[in-house]
C-alpha cells in the first residue's frame, strides 16, 4: 500500500463514521414522545454498546467459560473448579496476591496525591504549561522506552566496577555499598511500584488540573474575602469541589494498576517474588500456555474490581441525590 492509499483509507473510515452518526442523529432528532426518548437513547448508545458487547462482553464470557477447562492449547479437557483450587492453594500465589495488594493500595493513592499537589502548586504560575509538560512526559513515553529509562536508574554492578545505574552511582559517590534494587523482596516490589507512580502521576495531574480550573471564580473569591489561608483553601474549597474527579482518577488508576503487567515483565520477569496477578495471567496465557489457569486469574482480577465498582455506584447515587 502506498502512503496516499493509507491516508485515503483513513479519510474514508473517518468520513464514513461521521456520516453514519450524523444520519442517525438527524433521523432521531425530531422524536419527542416517550417512545422517542427510547429511540434516541438507542441512537446515542447503540453503536458503543454493540462494540463493547462484541469486543469485551463476549470475550469476558469466553474467559469465564475457559476457566473451567484444562491446560491444553487445543481442545482442553473440562476440569471444573480445579483451576480455582490450584490458584488459592499454591503458596507462591499468596505472594502474588500480597504484591497485588501493595500495588493497588500504593499506586493510586500516591500518584493521585502527587498529581493533585503538583496541579495546585503550579496552578496559575507563570511556568505552568512547562511545569505540567514535565510531569506529563512519562505518560507520553512508550513502555519500551520507560523500561530502558529505569534500567539506567536501577542497574546494578558490584561496588568496584563502573556503574551504569544512576541510583547505585549515587550510592557509591556517597561511599555506601551498591544495592541490587530488583533482587531483594519485598523492597523490590516497591521499586517497581515507583515506576508506575512515575507514569500515572501525569494522568492524575492532567485530569485534576482541569477540575481545579472549573472551580467557580467567585467561590474562591468569597473564601479569600473570609481570609482563608492557602492550606484551608486547599482543604475546604479545592478538595471538596473536585471530589468527583478525585474518585474518577483514583478509580481509573486502580483499574489500570490491576491490569499492569509490562513493568513486571520487563524489569524482573516476575522473579524474586515480584509477580502480580496481571503478570501471572499474562504469563500463564502466553508463555506457559495454560489457558485454563490464565482465564481463572482473569476472573479473579475481575472479582477484585467489584468493590471498586460498588463504591463508585454509591458515590454516583450520592451525586444524584444532591
Amino acid at each position, binding site marked *: *500500500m502506498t*502512503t496516499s492509499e493509507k491516508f485515503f*483509507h*483513513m479519510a474514508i473510515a*473517518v468520513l464514513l463514521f461521521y456520516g453514519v452518526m450524523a444520519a442517525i*442523529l438527524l433521523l*432521531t*432528532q425530531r422524536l*419527542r414522545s416517550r417512545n422517542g*426518548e427510547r429511540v*434516541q*437513547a438507542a441512537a446515542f448508545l447503540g453503536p*458503543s454498546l454493540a462494540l*463493547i458487547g*462484541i*469486543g*469485551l462482553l463476549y*470475550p*469476558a464470557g469466553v474467559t469465564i467459560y475457559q476457566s473451567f477447562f484444562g491446560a491444553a492449547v487445543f481442545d482442553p479437557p473440562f476440569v471444573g473448579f480445579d483451576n480455582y483450587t490450584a490458584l488459592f492453594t499454591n503458596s507462591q500465589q499468596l505472594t502474588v496476591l500480597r504484591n497485588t495488594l501493595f500495588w493497588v493500595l500504593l499506586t493510586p493513592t500516591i500518584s493521585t496525591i*502527587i498529581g493533585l*499537589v503538583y496541579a495546585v*502548586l503550579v496552578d496559575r*504560575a*507563570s511556568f505552568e504549561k512547562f*511545569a505540567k*509538560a*514535565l*510531569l*506529563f*512526559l*512519562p505518560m507520553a*513515553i*512508550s*513502555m519500551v*522506552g520507560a523500561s530502558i*529509562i529505569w534500567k539506567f536508574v536501577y542497574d546494578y554492578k558490584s561496588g568496584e566496577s*563502573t556503574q*551504569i*545505574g*544512576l541510583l547505585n552511582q549515587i550510592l557509591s559517590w556517597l561511599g555506601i555499598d551498591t544495592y541490587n534494587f530488583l533482587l531483594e523482596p519485598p523492597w523490590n516490589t516497591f521499586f517497581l511500584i515507583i515506576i508506575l507512580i512515575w507514569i500515572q502521576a501525569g*494522568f492524575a495531574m492532567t485530569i485534576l488540573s*482541569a477540575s481545579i*480550573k*472549573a*472551580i*467557580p*471564580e467567585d467561590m*474562591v473569591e468569597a473564601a479569600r*474575602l473570609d*481570609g482563608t*489561608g*492557602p492550606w484551608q483553601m486547599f482543604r475546604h474549597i479545592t478538595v471538596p469541589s473536585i471530589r468527583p474527579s478525585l474518585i*474518577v482518577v483514583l478509580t481509573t488508576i486502580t*483499574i489500570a494498576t490491576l*491490569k499492569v503487567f509490562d513493568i513486571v515483565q520487563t524489569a524482573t520477569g516476575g522473579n524474586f517474588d515480584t509477580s502480580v496477578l496481571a503478570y501471572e*495471567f499474562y504469563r500463564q496465557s502466553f508463555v506457559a500456555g495454560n489457558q485454563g489457569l490464565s*482465564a481463572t486469574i482473569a476472573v479473579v482480577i*475481575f472479582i477484585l474490581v467489584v468493590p471498586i465498582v460498588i463504591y463508585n*455506584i454509591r458515590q*454516583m447515587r450520592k451525586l444524584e441525590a444532591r
Partner: protein
Amino acid sequence: MSTSTPTAAQVPADTAPAIPASTAAKKQLTSRWASAVALIVALVWTIPTFGLLISSFRPEEDVKSSGWWNFFTDPSFTLQNYKDVLSGGSTGESLTTNLINTIVITVPAVLIPISLATLAAYAFAWIDFKGRDTLFVAVFALQIVPIQVTLVPLLQLYVDPPFNLMPLAGRDAPAGGLYELWLSHTIFALPLAIFLLHNFMREVPGELIESARVDGAGHVAIFTKIMVPLMMPAIAAFGIFQFLWVWNDLLVALVFSSPQVSPMTVKLVSLVGQRGEDWQLLASGAFVSLAIPLVVFLALQRYFVRGLLAGSVKG
C-alpha cells in the same frame, strides 16, 4: 480599635479587597516554598528521562559500559543512534513508513471512540430510560477486562466473521488490516472514555439542560449546541490520553497489524534485534516517537486553561 496585633486571619482579609482574587491567589500559591516543592517534583520526574536523552546521543560502547552522567566529564557526542533508527538500522527500511502507519492508525482510533463515547456518556447522563443505571454499571465494570483476554476471540471474529461478513484480517484484509486495528482500539477505549466523560457531564448543572428542554430543544440539539462546547476541555483531556495509548501501543499492534501497516512501536522493538543486541537504539527510538505526542499535548493544553464550565453558569 485597640492596638492589639491583628490575628493572622485578619491580615489578608483587610488587604484582600484591594487586589483581584486571581492575583492574590497567584501570590499565595506561587510563593517560593510552593515553587520549590514543584521544582523538586519536576526534577525527580525528569531526571530519568533526561538520562535517556543523554544516552541517545552517546556511542554504543559508552552506553553499554558507563553511566550517562559521564557525558559531562568525558563527552563523546554522536548522532549515529538517530541515524540508525531513522534509516531503519540494518533492516534497510526507513522509519518514515512506520511513522505514517502510526499516524494513520492513531487518528481514527482517537476520533471514533471519543465521538462514540461522548454520545453514550450523554445518553447515560441526561436521557431517561429504563435500565440506564444497570447498563452504565455494566459498561463501567467492563473496563477491567484485560486486553489480552480479548485478543484471541476478536481475532477469530475478524478472520472468520459470522453471517458472511467481510473478513477484516488475513491476507486479503481490506487496507492491510487497518480496519481491525481501528475497531480494536475503539473497543478497548470505550468503557473508560464513557466513564470519564459521563462524570464530567454530570457536573453540568441540570437547570441548563432543563431550560433548553423547555425552549423546545431536542437531545440532538442540546448535545451538539450545549454539551459538546462545554465538554471540550474534558474531550481534549481524554483525547490526549487516548492518543498516547494508541500511539505507544505495542500489544494490539503486534496482534492485529500486518507487516505493511505495522506502527513505529513494532518497528522499534524489531530494531533492537532478535536477541536485544542493539538495545541502545531504544533510547533514540523512544525520543523519535515521543516528539509528536509532546507537540499534541502542548497544542491541546490551551483547552485546560479555561474552566470546564467557566462563563456558562455562575455556581
